[in-house]
């Protein structure tokens, strides 16, 4: 794809407008801890989980709760926070924790707990679980993903501290790296099982690493976290302050100059887009083009995003496009003449290229689905909401992002990630 980012990392002013969206925290049923007009410090709880009220989401800045936006049936959509000029951070106590309980308490209080993802189900980790391992992912293979080595530059100490904390929480910490990874901070990491993987996307997905190192069986739990987030977590214990600052790759053909920025989760991106995105109709995506969520021009950076992708919005119909040779059309199949130019980089737009149809083609997903799982069969059981079948076919080993490439190449344009998300949610409700 066109628009790869340069390795340059720049700061961008945080601005004064922030927002938290409860929808982004999968598995949390939000209950508000603040009212409109309340003053908050950075690190104060904004809302917490109804079922497990130790899990909370905290304010990224100090300031005032400006508005609480609700949708249909009073569903919480956004909590808007107006930031102070100088940000006051709540102190959670500097220094590494002595035991798992102390670590958990600090992580939960500060809101950093949400950086840990639970597998199976792909939702915020449950502090009552006893995971058999924690998988730290330092292998970014999605298009334009922020490389872990770049993100950790200058944060080596925080990363090491974060790994120590993770070691308290689970018997084993697995760090997965690309076969070619040379950065010392990763290759010399202490207290971890190092595993190296090679290959194109989705070789960097945590599910692939889990399946290779220690496949998940029914009833087992592991936690997953991104390498950069380990540094954020380590920083919390080193300084006592929780700052959700990430090196974010901002790339795609819609960027004037694709590069990296240090941005804070929840910040407003209006000015950022105004300055950095070309004129024209572009879609800005928090996350990769495969799994991210679209953000509007006045939107906010989601709390989990470590990259922003900017690609052209698809426009216009395509006369007889299904019959013509299709030179210059991107397809993994060789049904278009474009297969004759394999090295070409494409400026992909958000076009769907067709309409949703019934499942017809078989064997198509297998090439981009590196698991010992039959994707078509699993998806059909997902579609039929047959929980027993899903279980038998390996639903516990996957999360929606593992189906992203299947979704890209799907002839029938089925919304696979959404289907898997819904199935996992139903399964979680049934099982707990």
């Amino acid at each position, binding site marked *: 794809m066109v628009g790869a980012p340069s390795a340059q990392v720049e700061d961008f002013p945080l601005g004064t407008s922030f927002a938290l969206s409860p929808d982004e925290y999968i598995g949390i049923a939000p209950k508000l801890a603040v009212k409109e007009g309340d003053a908050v410090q950075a690190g104060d709880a904004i809302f917490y989980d109804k079922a497990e009220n130790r899990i909370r989401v905290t304010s990224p800045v100090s300031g005032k709760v400006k508005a609480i936006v609700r949708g249909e049936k009073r569903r919480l959509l956004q909590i808007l926070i107006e930031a102070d000029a100088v940000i006051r951070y709540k102190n959670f106590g500097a220094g590494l924790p002595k035991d798992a309980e102390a670590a958990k308490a600090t992580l939960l209080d500060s809101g950093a707990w949400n950086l840990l993802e639970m597998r199976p189900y792909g939702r915020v980790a449950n502090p009552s679980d006893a995971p058999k391992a924690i998988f730290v992912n330092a292998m970014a293979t999605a298009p334009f993903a922020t490389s872990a080595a770049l993100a950790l530059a200058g944060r080596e100490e925080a990363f090491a501290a974060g790994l120590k904390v993770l070691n308290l929480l689970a018997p084993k910490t697995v760090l997965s790296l690309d076969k070619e990874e040379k950065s010392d901070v990763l290759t010399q990491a202490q207290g971890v099982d190092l595993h190296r993987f090679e290959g194109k996307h989705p070789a960097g997905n945590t599910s692939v690493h889990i399946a290779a190192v220690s*496949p998940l*069986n029914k*009833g087992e739990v592991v936690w997953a976290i991104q390498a950069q987030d380990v540094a954020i977590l380590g920083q919390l214990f080193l300084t006592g302050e929780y700052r959700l600052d990430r090196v974010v790759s901002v790339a795609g053909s819609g960027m004037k100059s694709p590069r990296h920025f240090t941005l804070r989760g929840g910040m407003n991106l209006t000015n950022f887009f105004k300055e950095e995105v070309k004129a024209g109709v572009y*879609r800005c*995506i928090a996350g990769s*083009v*495969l*799994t991210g969520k679209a953000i509007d021009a006045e939107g906010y950076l989601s709390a989990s995003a470590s990259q922003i992708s900017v*690609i052209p919005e*698809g*426009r216009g*119909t*395509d*006369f007889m*496009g*299904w*019959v013509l040779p*299709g030179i210059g*059309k*991107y*397809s*993994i*199949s*060789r*049904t*278009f003449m*474009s297969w004759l130019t394999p090295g070409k980089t494409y400026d*992909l*737009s*958000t*076009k*769907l*290229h*067709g*309409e*949703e*149809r*019934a499942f*017809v*083609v*078989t*064997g198509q997903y297998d090439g981009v689905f590196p698991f*010992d*799982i*039959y994707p*078509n*069969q699993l998806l059909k059981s997902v579609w039929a909401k047959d929980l027993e079948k899903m279980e*038998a*076919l*390996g639903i516990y080993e996957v999360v929606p992002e593992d189906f*992203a490439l299947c*979704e*890209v190449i*799907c*002839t*029938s*344009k089925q*919304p696979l*990630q*959404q289907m898997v998300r819904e199935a996992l949610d139903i399964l979680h409700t049934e099982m707990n």
Partner: protein
Amino acid sequence: MKFLQNIFDATRPAVTTGKLKPLYPLHNALETMMFVPDHNAHSGAHVRDAIDLKRTMVTVIFALVPALIFGIFNGGYQHFKAIDELANASGWAQFFTMDNFLFGAWKIVPMIAVTYMAGLGVEIYFAGRNRHPVNEGFLVSGLLIPMTMPIDMPLWMVAISTIFAVLIGKEVFGGTGMNLLNPALTARAFAFFAYPSFMSGDKVWINTSVEAGQKVVDGFSGATALGQYATTGTTSFSAWDAFVGLIPGSIGETSTLLIVLGGIYLIATGIGSWKIMLGSTLGAISMGLLFNWAAPYMLTESQEQFMSIPFYYHLVFGSWAFATVFMATDPVSAAHTERGKWIYGFLVGFLGIMIRVFNPAYPEGMMLAILFMNVMAPLIDHYVVNANIQKRLKRAKA
């Protein structure tokens, strides 16, 4: 192209609201046929592959076209050969003549048109009834059905077979993607059992209608190569003629050469499963060799002769090639697992040749073999998938 788009835009309100609503699937089908719509990805991945179901289907049609055009020429060629009025030329010049083409087209184009009208009519009716867009599967089925028919098939029989196939072969199972049987073969099987005198025997493969002053040549037999084998144990056609396709047979099945080219195209584009095609080839060869070995032990002489023909003859005579490349590979009715495709493909070839030789009523078996394997495919998949499930359970216990 703007004016076309304007027509669709102008007529859209009429079919999205009001009395003409049942016509919306038709409108939508025509519009998406002319223009790949400007839909954008809204959930999940933001970039998508350019392929869609229409592209997949049209790829199969591209692969079919050479065999179809050959079939049209062959329709005329066989007719004029039967009445001894071939063009006065030698070699291929005698085959690729305007007369041959026009005669074949005059017979075959109406069959294609009738099939599409009947089949798409049913599809659009069900799309309107069940409120879903028209699926493109029939684009291929609609071409496959006439290509598996004899040239003299009455149009109304083609239409009824097609309607039966779409209704019973597809819609009763829930429409495209859910069917158990290959719809095109369902049509052929229906015609075969409902109108046997039009679908089998020696008289149907070549049009022998004569006008004043014309007559069928002395000693003419319209039997196919396999028909001759079944009755006499030998054939008057050479394997080479059969390979290039200068023999009587169903419209699309005769030219093994062009079918193989179509097959290569399907494999190269990734649309047709090479595992099924190779599996069927291996199955047919195994059965052929098995017959060669068993031939001396047979009781009747004609059977012994039929069984002792070189194994590769089975690949060029009859419908093996067409069935393997275009029928067995239908992704919906074939095995869905990659390992299952090997088993499925092998058994299609193996059983097809077996039925062909042993079936006393009709010397061809690919249609029955594929329909039988269509029914068996879910069973094959079941065992393949179950092995995966067992592996997972075993791992959990360990």
